[in-house]
């Protein structure tokens, strides 16, 4: 296997890791409006991801950095081409991070309500926009011979990509509801299960449509296999959730994300950003990758440090393994 193929897989793994982890973070943020009925419940939800959301978000930074290092042209074309959606995502991630840290710093009702609203919207928009972005990557966009995106913003908002956006939005919310059922205790836990069922069914409809559309447009044998895994995993998650097996349900909803995002990358390969103007202008793993030396250096770094990251991030989840209920939420800051 050529190193740039390996790096295609590693980039896919980083994005999959990001969507798996920040997927439920986004979901929790959205559920602060859908599931939580009062401030205490909103705080329960926020605190289920409190210690981990920042580490989860680093998967995105690593995916971005690794793309820059391993596929400079992919990074350059993608980030300059999708300027406006990425700007919106940036604004959301900035406000969202600050919201988590600042909401509890003052006890004023308006202050807290505003930050809570911010958490909701800044979780919802990226969850949608990432789907739009990946829909466009897989579908192909107008890339010229200099590898520059020459389409407009409106070209990115095509039906296929918008369906992709809706799919990730609902899928992440479902994943978040399953996570909430796993991490909370008391009444909210039961309601999380019920909402998970509803969200899971909507996800099933949307994901099926999106994945079949993808499979017909740009699929291959491997992506078909991944599609089947994704669908089965989603059914598994629904079933486990119904049976009250929350750990299994979360495992399966996670597997759904892994398989669905994996499916997108499988149908993409060996392109990384196909051009709709001329297939010869498409960015591929070979024409947009770094030199062999750089890839070798980065491979060594990845092989040494990725397991380490998994180890200490995994440990964090173990440390904060206890379920949280309204009874665990301390009175608002004594200020």
């Amino acid at each position, binding site marked *: 296997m050529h190193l740039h193929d390996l790096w295609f897989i590693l980039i896919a793994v980083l994005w999959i890791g990001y969507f798996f982890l920040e997927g439920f973070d986004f979901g929790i943020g959205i559920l602060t409006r859908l599931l939580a009925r009062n401030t205490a419940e909103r705080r329960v939800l926020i*605190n289920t991801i409190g210690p981990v959301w920042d580490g989860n978000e680093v998967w995105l930074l690593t995916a971005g950095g690794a793309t820059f290092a*391993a596929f400079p042209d992919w990074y350059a074309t993608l980030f*300059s081409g999708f300027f406006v959606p990425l700007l919106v995502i940036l604004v959301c991630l900035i406000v969202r991070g*600050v919201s988590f840290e600042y909401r509890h710093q003052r006890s004023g009702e308006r202050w807290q309500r505003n930050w809570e609203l911010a958490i909701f919207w800044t979780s919802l928009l990226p969850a949608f926009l990432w789907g739009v972005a990946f829909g466009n990557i897989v579908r192909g966009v107008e890339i010229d011979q200099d590898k520059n995106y*020459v389409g407009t913003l409106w070209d990115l908002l095509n039906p296929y990509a918008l369906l992709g956006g809706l799919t990730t939005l609902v899928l992440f919310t479902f994943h978040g509801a399953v996570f909430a059922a796993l991490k909370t205790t008391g009444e909210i836990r039961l309601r999380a299960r019920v909402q998970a069922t509803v969200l899971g069914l909507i996800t099933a409809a949307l994901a099926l449509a999106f994945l079949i559309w993808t499979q017909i447009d740009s699929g291959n044998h491997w992506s078909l296999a991944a599609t089947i895994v994704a669908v089965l995993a989603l059914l598994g998650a629904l079933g486990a959730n119904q049976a009250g097996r929350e750990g299994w349900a979360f495992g399966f909803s996670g597997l759904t994300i892994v398989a669905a995002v994996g499916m997108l990358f499988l149908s993409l390969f060996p392109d990384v950003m196909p051009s709709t103007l001329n297939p010869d202008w498409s960015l591929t793993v070979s024409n947009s990758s770094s030199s062999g030396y750089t890839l070798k250096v980065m491979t060594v770094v990845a092989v040494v*440090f990725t397991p380490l990251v998994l180890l200490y991030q995994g440990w964090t989840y173990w440390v904060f393994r206890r379920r*949280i209920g309204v009874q*665990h*939420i301390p009175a608002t800051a004594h200020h």
Partner: protein
Amino acid sequence: MDLAVAHETISRWQFGITTVYHFLFVPLTISLASIVACLQTAWVRTGKEKYFHATKFWGKLFLINIAMGVVTGIVQEFQFGMNWSDYSRFVGDVFGAPLAMEALIAFFFESTFIGLWIFGWDKLPKKIHLACIWMVAIGTALSAYFILAANSWMQHPVGYRIDPATGKAQLTDIVRVLTQNTTLVQVFHTLTAAFLTGAAFVVGIASFHLWRAKQGKQPDKRKTAAMRTSLRFGLAIAVVAGLGTAISGDTLGKVMFEQQPMKMAAAEALWDTQAPAPFSVFAVGDVSKGHNSVALEIPGILSFLAHNDFSSEVPGINDIAAAEAAQHGGQPTDYIPNIFVTYWGFRLMIGFGMTSFVAALIGLWTTRRKFWLAPEHRTGEDEPPKLMLTKNREMNVFFTRWSWRIGILTMGFPLIANSFGWIFTEMGRQPWVVFGLMRTRDAVSPNVSVGTQVLGLCTLTALYAILAVIEVKLLAKYAAAGPDTDEKPPAKDPTLRGPSDDEDADKPLAFAY
């Protein structure tokens, strides 16, 4: 304005604003992480209450600050691709590697362990919890190292070749990129300056509380105890870091004289090559004519700054520009950076930074411990220190008042110095984005319209402005409130296995968002 010029200018303004803004939080984060870690270490080792209160207090301000540092950092990584795609294509093979390493090695480290530290007070055994904040501190320093390695490559490209097929830079030696002298000295200079920044911040806020205590406006003695320790610790760090900043700055200057003579000539507004070369204290010049009309100079000092002796030759702007034009084509004026900004940026960097250092030096002496003082002037651990000139002589009321005020007022000086330092070094490199290899005007994303760029610039600037107001208000609120002396550490040391008895199962969390 010419559209091509607008294209470059808008993206440069965005990069400048977002980077200077981001770098207000970075040095505070780096230094406060270590300062909090030291205070917590003191608490774990001695069990003294004042260290616990100090840890919690500075930890709180640290967290308000790091939140902004983290989120503004995301923009930094994205905007290379968004606004500077041709730059990204040209340098990605080299520049991407340290960036990816920063994310994989440093960012994961900081962000994971900060979560453990914030939420782990009642979950982790004391010593493991302490280790977490040290991990954060190490993570922040590592992060600085990798990003400075990347920046140093822009200042002085090494360990690469230009691929003849693509015309792009290609990495040939990662070890050189990570260990070249530009990288090492820049890291040394940035880290020492970061510690000066955090120390001045601590000194300023501690001075505020101690001055209030001195005036009898603050009766809580436990607060005073925590602040007194913080003041002394801050002053000591400021002196060591200030000295380190001066030494590393001098070293970096010598490296730059060799690698980017134009930047240093511009820093001095030294138009003509001179031997010996003087250090300019003040100058007013006419850039279009290529000389200064008014200049106050100290002879020989610039030669010393460049080469460690008082007589050697230092090349001037006009000669260097002519040489660069001969080498790369075009007019000599194409190679002259903005002299006004570099000249004054350099001076303000040194001025603000060193004022802070001198203030700390004086503060460290006048607040010295009882061992050096006559018995009747010694103050208790929970009292504000007297400002002592000699063993027996206290400062008079007027100077005492102003000393405390200066402690407070100089709190932000290193922040200003840092900003001018970056503006100086980045603008002094112009017209190059990668020195000698790529011009800034060739680095911009060609496919991003001016309108879109303006949208990006305005959105981020407006958002940053709003967040600045919120963050400064929050910092001011908590800084003015002082340590919460009612707060107590967990009654028993938590175990990793968690609470075993059921009565603990419903206990509220020690910390929650």
